[in-house]
């Protein structure tokens, strides 16, 4: 059988992969202009994904069961997000690359490769593409984490990340294999259909284990407790922009994968997946917040806070644990809430890491929190952006984006009849504020240091991100509409 391949549907993936190749060539032959090429490529990928996504739905690599590559609005949105995040991180990396602390060509090439994985992940229609894309997203990051020259922490973080992540992938693969053995298909939609038709599959030994394994493996990618231990070490060891990428793009990848697998693939079995997700969410946010309280290093604090945020992201899916939460509309609401929270979160997180980049020496790490004392007086605008991002992550005005993010989650939980989980989220928000406000207050402390200059590239990226955060804060409907689109796949 000869398949006809829809190359238009594949355009965003071509653009992303082409960016990686171009960066490699540019580095090889000219050794200059590598960063502009990578940034242009990321922008082109975003534009291409946007064009394809707003057009008619396309699909390719189709077999009897369904299609493995779905270029619909959902995939388009995810691809655009990945491309823009990559662009943002590339721009934030400009001073780091100029300082010579990391090799420019390799750095940009690896980021472009990771972007390719993320873009394809958005379009994934079967388990194999999904896992391969997720690995393509993660694999370059092992190297990126360890790229800071001559630092032990960097190598340590990279090795931890690598080992844990490989184990996670194996676990995911095992789960996927068990599901394949059960149903004979890897197509997500066909998987849902078979699981729905053949109720006797529930009695097969290891059926529940397949669900738990695949979700647990994916939970590693979002750094959900108890699969979170790699995150603080990896974030802290990595160059700060790479940590930003890990906590935004990489986490987005994990969330998208969990959504596709749980909501699309395992829909008839949400009664099995629901309690797992609810337990993950509760553990993740509670442990993340409590440990974050005691952190002394900035990037570690952000890492633990992003662990806690992963809990909020997963929380709406925890509503699947109740029967009310699994009916059609509540399910769509929960999925949309997860996507919306993720979008709000990545914007604020990128702004937070952008501020750290702006406030630190370019080649350095995140440093101790105490070193940030009085930072808002040295650089008032950057300090303001940082406070806005932190307060947003805590979910309070003036960080309206974060406030609405929390509102979305609580609302979806109450719609899904999971009031207890809403209260857990609410109480966690209070714990979270304790450390966010500590850092924010420290920024305004008294310290005698000269005003520092922020490189224009970083300042520009930070300004744009903060502006986006403000806009979606006042017009949250923009994000909610986009999230509905994703959830209705």
């Amino acid at each position, binding site marked *: 059988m000869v398949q006809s391949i829809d190359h238009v549907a594949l355009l965003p993936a071509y653009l992303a992969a082409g960016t990686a190749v171009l960066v490699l060539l540019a580095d090889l032959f000219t050794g200059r202009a590598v960063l502009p090429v990578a940034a242009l490529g990321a922008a082109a990928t975003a534009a291409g994904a946007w064009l394809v996504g707003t057009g008619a739905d396309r699909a390719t690599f189709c077999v009897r069961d369904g299609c493995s590559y779905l270029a619909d609005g959902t995939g388009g949105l995810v691809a655009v997000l990945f491309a823009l995040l990559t662009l943002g991180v590339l721009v934030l990396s400009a001073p780091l690359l100029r300082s010579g602390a990391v090799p420019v060509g390799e750095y940009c090439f690896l980021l472009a490769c990771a972007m390719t994985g993320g873009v394809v992940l958005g379009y994934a229609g079967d388990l194999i593409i999904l896992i391969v894309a997720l690995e393509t997203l993660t694999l370059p990051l092992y190297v990126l984490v360890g790229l800071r020259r001559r630092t032990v922490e960097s190598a340590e973080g990279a090795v931890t990340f690598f080992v844990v992540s490989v184990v996670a992938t194996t676990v995911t693969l095992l789960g996927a294999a068990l599901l394949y053995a059960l149903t004979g298909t890897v197509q997500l939609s066909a998987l849902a259909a078979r699981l729905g038709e053949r109720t006797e599959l529930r009695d097969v030994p290891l059926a529940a284990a397949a669900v738990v394994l695949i979700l647990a493996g994916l939970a590693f990618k979002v750094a959900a407790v108890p699969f979170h231990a790699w995150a603080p070490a990896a974030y802290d060891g990595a160059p700060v922009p790479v940590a930003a990428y890990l906590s935004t793009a990489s986490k987005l990848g994990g969330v998208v994968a969990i959504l596709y697998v749980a909501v699309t693939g395992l829909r008839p079995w949400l009664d099995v997946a629901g309690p797992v997700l609810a337990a993950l969410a509760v553990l993740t946010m509670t442990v993340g917040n409590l440990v974050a309280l005691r952190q002394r290093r900035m990037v570690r604090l952000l890492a633990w806070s992003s662990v806690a945020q992963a809990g909020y992201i997963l929380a709406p899916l925890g509503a699947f644990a109740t029967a009310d939460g699994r009916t059609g509309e509540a399910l769509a609401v929960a999925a949309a809430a997860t996507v919306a929270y993720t979008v709000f979160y990545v914007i604020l997180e990128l702004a937070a890491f952008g501020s750290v980049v702006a406030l630190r020496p370019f080649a350095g790490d995140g440093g101790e929190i105490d070193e940030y004392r009085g930072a808002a007086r040295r650089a008032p605008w950057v300090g303001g952006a940082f406070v806005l991002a932190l307060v947003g992550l805590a979910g309070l*005005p003036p960080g309206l984006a974060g406030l609405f993010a929390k509102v979305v989650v609580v609302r979806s939980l*109450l719609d899904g009849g999971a009031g207890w989980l809403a209260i857990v989220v609410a109480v966690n928000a209070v714990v979270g504020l304790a450390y966010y*406000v500590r850092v924010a*207050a420290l920024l*305004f402390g008294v310290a005698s240091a000269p005003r520092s200059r922020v490189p224009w590239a970083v300042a520009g990226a930070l300004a744009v991100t903060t502006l986006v955060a403000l806009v979606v804060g006042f017009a*949250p409907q923009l994000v909610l509409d986009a999230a509905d689109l994703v959830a209705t796949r």
Partner: protein
Amino acid sequence: MSAGQVALVATLAVPAVGASVVAALPSRADRAARLVGTVAAAVTLVVSAALYRPGDGGWFSFGPNPPAIRPWHDLDVSWASGLDLRFHLGVDGISYPLVVLTALLTLLCCGYTLWHVPDPGRGRLLTALLLAIEVGILGTFLALDLVLFFVFFEVVLLPMYAVIAVWGGPDRRHAARKFVLYTLLGSVLLLVGVFTVVSAAGTGDIVALTAANPLSRGTQLAAFTLLALGLAVKAPLWPLHTWLPDAHTEAPTVGSVILAGVLLKMGTYGLIRVAVGVAPEGARWAAPVVGSLAVAAIIVGSLVCLAQRELKRLIAYSSVGHMGFVMLGIATLTATGLQAALIGNVAHGIITGLLFFLAGAVKDRAHTGLLDDLGGLRERAPGLAGVLGFAAIASLGLPGLAGFWGEAFAVVGSLRRGGPLWSTLAAIAALGGALTAAYFLRLLRRVSHGPASPVVAAMPAGLARPELASWGPLVLLALAVGLVPALVLGMAHDPVQALTEVVNR
């Protein structure tokens, strides 16, 4: 847009724009910035006062079942439909006095900051934060949408934290953290309560929810519990009050004034407008508990005050007792009780605002607030001692001054409710009233009377003109509301009547 709608938006927009402008001005223009802020606060007061339009004859022509909330002005536009969030503002006889009080106190505080900036300076930022707080409080009082109410409720939190943490007393960081975490706990419970209502009813419109009451009994009980818990932290209701004494004591004078004067009212106002209005059955169910806790607050507050040795802390704890009376009024769910709560709210805002101004003045001059070190203020600074005496007597509820009506009618309302429980509560509350008199007289005896202590003898005698300017309006209002309670009660009569009909339907 009608003129009323423009005024509603302007009431929020003027302080918001003012805050941003003041914050954006360079630090060398500090005094000019404070002046700009004060002007913005004054404009806000004028605009908010212009919202007055009572006795609109059209109310009862709405048919046999007029809605319980009939705002004088109404603005309703969608903000985020995905969250059931509508930008729905309105003002009526219940919210209007509080709106004007907020605008007035903010103006007085901004004016006071023009004259005196507490350490470590940077008065323009303090002014900007005061205006930001004003936006949140006014928005809370004006919101007629549950989600919007919650959003504005949250706006206040961090600016107030900053005011305490930056310009507060020696233990300010601890107090500020305690304040922000406690009250955030309250507001997240409020959030859960709000969406319990919204997901059950499919709307967050307070007018519609109060009119139709679509919620089942179970939902109402859950919703009222969550809403009341969230709001009771802010009010604060004993035993959720522990953040208050620290925050009030450590906050700078203007912070304490705003905190005690209007910020606490967000809790009691929310209880009347949101919790009772939206979940009346839940309110009836929980009334005995709320009433008992309120009376406990009155007694505990008074007893702690009797043993208190620090001036600001004493006034802070007196707030616990006074808000207990307000809570008792609300808990009776009678027209008398709710009226008492409303006027008690306003009176407490005026009098305690004044008391904190005075306590600040004493502490600024004597550099201590310990009652043991103070004494003989009458000898040294008769003007200050006189105003302090007036405020203390107003606060203890002397008939003819503002404090009287709220306390007396809370007790009357409780008696009218009848039954052994409410009669007992009324009796204990009346006893609490007597204790209130006792501790305020003790305060006066310790501070004003006797021979002048060394620190008092060393302090400057006269009163500055800005001080008189900021206290004067409050003194006059305390007298006016005391002599003519109809100023507040008149416009609140119809809405309260409508609300009690909803509750007892």
